[in-house]
């Protein structure tokens, strides 16, 4: 069967027959059965709102992705390079920098030494910066990858690349792929939720777009306080009784119409309104942090309603969403773009984020959620070993964008804890051991959720698209427990 058509048919069938035949919230369309007649390459995944079995046994059921937008300096946090101190003020040898492109600096800029002290932490003895006192506590739970690299050296494209596998907006994001591939586990909440704190996000809404996938798979931005979802509250003056009466009357009227015309779309509409009502009922409970103990709030540094604690609040909300079965929780925190005064910048950002990151890991673990929740931390690229300084821009002691090497960490969801993986050269410039490309990162995340990234594909405009692009990429199985 033609794949485009297959996309449509599956979508139509599952959408139409799902509600009528199975009632709301039930209905299984096995991923395997989507592999239509004899090995079509397309894992045309479920378009229903219910979970579909993955390709193989998953290690994680959900993802909390702490996206550090702006690109934190690995050289100040995770990838200690004493050699840089030694060479400080001298240019990097031309053999290293030949052919590299930079956003702001000239490639012959001088080396800048690490701005902070590092020490070995935990049983694993993994060396991280003294700016991360809280994370140091949970270092044995984490899996560090110091050999990440990417293709793009500007924020917007690189953020899009990390989120959608492509540097130009318009492709489905990882969360949308997972929603498409695995369906919804949370009855009354969206599958894919987006939280944001810090400054502006370069990649924009393209980062949680459904792209060419059915639009229902797009990420739903939640606000950290008040109404989490757009229009989740009734307009003023309309209480729950009126809303209920309205929905009941609507159902009666729509049912009358359904008797005249056989279009099953009417039943779907009735069900969608019911689901909306349930989401309305559920949202206040979700946002009610008073259910949390003072100790929990304190461990995160969460302060409901306080914008300065937005990241901590979002981490706590992320855990609450995880508990309620939300599949993909994307937490963005911007403010890591330290072109000038990288030391001050890192201090400021770690103050805002270090405690909550560590608390999230501990909290998930304590609740038994860490084993099937994959936590991911990372930016869109790294920072240069060279200093950035510019009179015109008033910059000094900063670091420019560096796609050649950066560090990410993972926790839970079947990852091997207490591991530091991959290595950069003594300048932290190039990866010299076990390189992990962005597409490998994405393949690994999908793998943890039981999805073969090669088989999660969607036919669009003549091509079989997948999150991880056309080149060969692999999940990094060495990282898995």
């Amino acid at each position: 069967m033609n794949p485009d058509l297959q996309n449509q048919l599956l979508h139509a069938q599952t959408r139409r027959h799902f509600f009528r035949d199975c009632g709301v919230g039930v209905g299984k369309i096995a991923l395997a059965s989507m592999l239509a007649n004899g090995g079509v390459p397309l894992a045309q995944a479920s378009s229903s709102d219910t979970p579909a079995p993955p390709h193989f046994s998953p290690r994680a059921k959900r993802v909390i992705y702490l996206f550090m937008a702006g690109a934190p300096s690995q050289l100040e946090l995770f990838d200690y390079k004493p050699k840089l101190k030694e060479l400080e003020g001298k240019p990097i040898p031309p053999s290293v920098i030949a052919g590299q492109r930079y956003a702001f600096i000239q490639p012959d800029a001088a080396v800048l030494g690490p701005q902070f002290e590092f020490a070995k932490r935990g049983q694993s003895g993994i060396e991280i910066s003294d700016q991360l006192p809280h994370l140091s506590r949970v270092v044995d739970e984490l899996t560090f990858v110091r050999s990440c690299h990417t293709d793009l050296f500007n924020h917007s494209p690189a953020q899009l690349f990390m989120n959608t596998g492509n540097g130009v907006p318009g492709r489905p994001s990882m969360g949308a792929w997972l929603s498409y591939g695995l369906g919804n586990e949370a009855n009354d909440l969206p599958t894919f939720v987006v939280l944001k704190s810090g400054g502006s996000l370069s990649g924009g809404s393209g980062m949680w777009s459904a792209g060419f996938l059915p639009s229902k798979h797009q990420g739903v931005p939640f606000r950290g306080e008040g109404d989490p979802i757009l229009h989740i509250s009734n307009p003023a003056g309309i209480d729950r009784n009126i809303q209920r009466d309205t929905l009941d009357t609507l159902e009666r009227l729509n049912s009358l119409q359904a008797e005249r015309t056989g279009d099953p779309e009417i039943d779907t509409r009735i069900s969608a309104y019911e689901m909306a009502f349930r989401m309305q009922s559920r949202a206040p409970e979700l946002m009610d942090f008073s259910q949390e103990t003072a100790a929990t709030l304190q461990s995160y540094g969460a302060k409901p309603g306080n914008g300065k604690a937005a990241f901590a609040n979002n981490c706590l909300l992320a855990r609450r969403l995880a508990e309620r079965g939300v599949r993909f929780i994307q937490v963005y925190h911007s403010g890591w773009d330290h072109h000038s005064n990288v030391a001050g910048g890192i201090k400021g950002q770690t103050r805002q984020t270090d405690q909550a990151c560590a608390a999230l890991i501990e909290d998930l673990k304590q609740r038994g959620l860490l084993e099937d929740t994959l936590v991911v931390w990372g930016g869109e690229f790294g920072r240069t070993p060279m200093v950035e300084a510019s009179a015109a821009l008033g910059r000094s002691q900063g670091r420019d964008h560096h796609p050649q090497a950066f560090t990410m960490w993972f926790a839970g969801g079947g990852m091997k804890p207490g591991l530091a993986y991959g290595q950069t050269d003594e300048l932290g410039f190039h990866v010299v051991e076990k390189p992990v490309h962005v597409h490998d990162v994405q393949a690994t995340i999908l793998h943890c959720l039981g999805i073969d990234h090669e088989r999660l594909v969607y036919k669009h405009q003549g091509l079989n698209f997948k999150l991880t692009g056309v080149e060969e990429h692999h999940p990094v199985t060495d990282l898995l427990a």
Partner: protein
Amino acid sequence: MKELKPNARVAALLVLWGSLSAAAPSVRAAETGESLSFAREIQPILARKCYACHGPDEGDRQADLRLDEREAAVEYGAIVPEDSENSSMIERIFSDDPDLRMPPPHAHDQLTEEEKQKLRQWIDAGAKYEAHWAFTPPIRPELPKVENSDWPRNGIDHFVLARLEKAGLSPAAEADRYTLIRRLSLDLTGLPPSPEEVDQFINDQSPDAYENVVDRLLASPRYGEKWARLWLDLARYADTNGYEKDRAREIWPYRDWVIRAINDDMPFDQFTTEQLAGDLLPDPTIDQLVATGFHRNTMLNEEGGIDPLEYRYYAMVDRVATTGTVWMGMTIGCAQCHSHKYDPISHTDYFRFMALLNNADEPDQILPDETVTKKRAELQARIEKLQQGLTEQYQASISPSDNETVEEVYHERFTAWLNDQQQKAIDWTVVEPTAMQTNLPRLEVLEDGSLFSTGDITKRDLFELTFDLSSFNEPITGLRLEVLPDDRLPARGPGRAFYEGRKGDFFLSEVTAKQNDEQQTFNAGSASYGKISIGSGTAEAANVFDNNGSTGWSTSGREGESHQLLLTFTEPVSPDAPLNLEMLFERHFAASLGRFRISFTTDRKPLEAKPYNAETEALLASSIDDLTEADRERVERLFLLQTPELEKMRKQIEQLRNQMPDYPTTMVLRERPEDNPRETHRHHRGEFLNPEEEVSAGIPLLFPQIETSEPSRLALANWLTSEQNPLLSRVVVNRQWQTLFGYGLVRTPSDFGTQSEPPTHPELLDWLAVEFRERGWSRKQLHRLIVTSATYRQTSDVPAEQYQRDPDNRLLARGPRFRISAETIRDTMLHASGLLSDKMFGPGVYPPQPESVVALAYGNEKWPTSTGEDRYRRSLYTFIKRTAPFAAFTTFDGPTGETCTVQRDRSNTPLQALTLLNDEMYLEMARAMASDVTGSVSSPPDVIQEMFRRLVTRPATEAEMQTILAYYERQQAHLKYDPAAVKAVTGKDDSDSTAAAWILTARLLMNLDEAITKF
């Protein structure tokens, strides 16, 4: 594959085309089940499961075998016609040996048993190849015979009915008049009919009542608005640049052009040519230039530090894919990284196609605007009046002593000032360079001796200019750089910055002079003005000779003005040898100069920049007695305006100048000059950083070639609309069908290639394609033809079994029924509430939406919610911000303008329910509708009926009426003792529960499935 000469490749393809008589007969053969059709049954299997390794892509081809060309497959022995036993392909696909079996066991795409049998059967029947149906020109098919000859109203119905009768089915009954006028109004104008329009139609007894409605709607200006929106989906239209900053851009004149063109029923071939190549038409009109905005709708990355050429390349990639999709229904974009896996489009073909589109510059076009002209003339007249009064005013401020007249004092002061200025004036000589070199941009010398830069610019531009100074008799003491405005530059220049910084800005990092390879240093600099954009740096003149590329001079904030920079040589330079001047522009964004002029002087006075331009300085440098009357007046005005006595006047004049409105601009394409074409290369793996050999422009070799020696965008447009392009009319007709019926006759509207789904009604598609072309590419006639068919007029009220049997209405045994688009939902509600403004055209507007929507976008921008009429404009005028699209539209599957959208999703989700129920914007409309309707009728059933008809068109049935009435009464009772709720619902202090209950009732009806459905 090497780039074959077009003729050679065509000859090669003739093998494939050889067995072809016409595509249609082969499809017919398949229809009647006579034998296996290559096009319908065999090619899809081969394309899907074999071509990836044995197809058109020479790069990935295995074992040197290709199965997409019969001759090659036969020669190889893979296929032995009429002898499957000896065909190695058959042996391999049936093999049990995993080392031999094809496709190999690791391939995802395995053959089914049925497919294997089909391939065997096909080979035994002679292994006939045929050209893919869509690659052969459509030929008008005969109208098929039908049994129920009363049913057809026009040709369309013959094809539809013949197919139904073959399947043993009959068409549905004609829909009732309510349904018909609703369907027509929504389809042709994007708005539901008003109850008055409905009544008129219901009561129209004339035989052509239906046609009259059709013609009225086709003539309505709303028609262009409705169909323009669909075209804008394809054009990926938006009002911002996309990517990180996503700043606003001015390209709404393009949107307005589309609306006008469609309302004027511009023939589709002309519509095509003007958008792709309006600038290349002879003496193009402004409108034809505006039309080229189609391909300016690509995104622009304004992030600091990007490589502008890289993102220009991505825009080109988008243009190629979009052109292929929109005008050919071809997935040409697939060949960006390697030759197409399924369709015969090579990697080189892809870049040849790109070359057709790649030779344009991308300027802003200033547009005429009567209002602006009038306003400017008005202001100019006021300025002139003030200036004429300057002398008088000044003289009035003079109190002469007894022995002097006012005139004498005036003359004395003026002469003193003039003498002083003449003393200071420097005698500059403009010198044109004898040689000019740059890293990439092209410099040309204009008549006034200035240099103008065109072509591409980079983050590090270097201009190297050589001057012959032999006309000077004395050593050169300094040079003057004038930076000059020009209408062709962004924001009128003088710089060429077009992203990240201010438009029209420049940043001059360093100026280096050399004579006989020895550097001639500067020791002083002076500038008439200096400011840099972005960052805290200074803009001192001396920055350009401090050996630091990160400091420099710029005139940011004063775009569209001329300014000057003077540099003094440490040691005067001999005029006897040529002088080389290097100008370096180096920043984190591309910012070299667009227009500038170099002068030299031998003057030994200190070189100070003047607050006036070079022409005035030249005047002052000459003797006052030589001045013309006009020049003298100019000099006098200059004197007057700098006097402390006239400071107030000066400020007034300045204020008036600042009020001068700018003309609107729009983004256009402009073909590059003949002597500076842009090269196009093939890029290895399609990657920007991997350019390979240069390619010449041309159409994919699969098709008959453009017959001109120098193919351009115009040649491409002419080719696309010629009969040599077998796809255009089919693709366009199919999209119109899709809009009206919900699905195209080809269900893969962006792909008519070998991987596409064959049309449900191939002959109907071809018949319509020929009709469309022969009716002069008239969209209105095509729409009229379709909507007057019996097929279109069928009811969609059919039993559930019929929906189940054919969920996507492939056989067209019923009328269309589906949810209306995001914009049409809002327009419908505005229309029903009486709020809808019919104001057309102009910049985007900002209907209300929650602040949190744009708060997610970069830069925490505000959404400047429109007030008054603009709040209620038709939805296609809503400002489209790519990174924060209007929430009520995205929720209902509206596009974001990032890529060409051929088919929108039609989802049905809880978030849509929340939007219609709870969005303040819709509550506002419910209030307006309640107030409007209760203002004209009073009895509750009448109010309900009027609301119902405004939204759903038909009157409510008795059962519906009772249900709604009961709801209304319950709300009224519920709210009776809750004044706070009443106040909140109505938004008014002095309101009652009746008013509130009507608002809730309007809200209820706005949420009906039928209110947002075309049926």
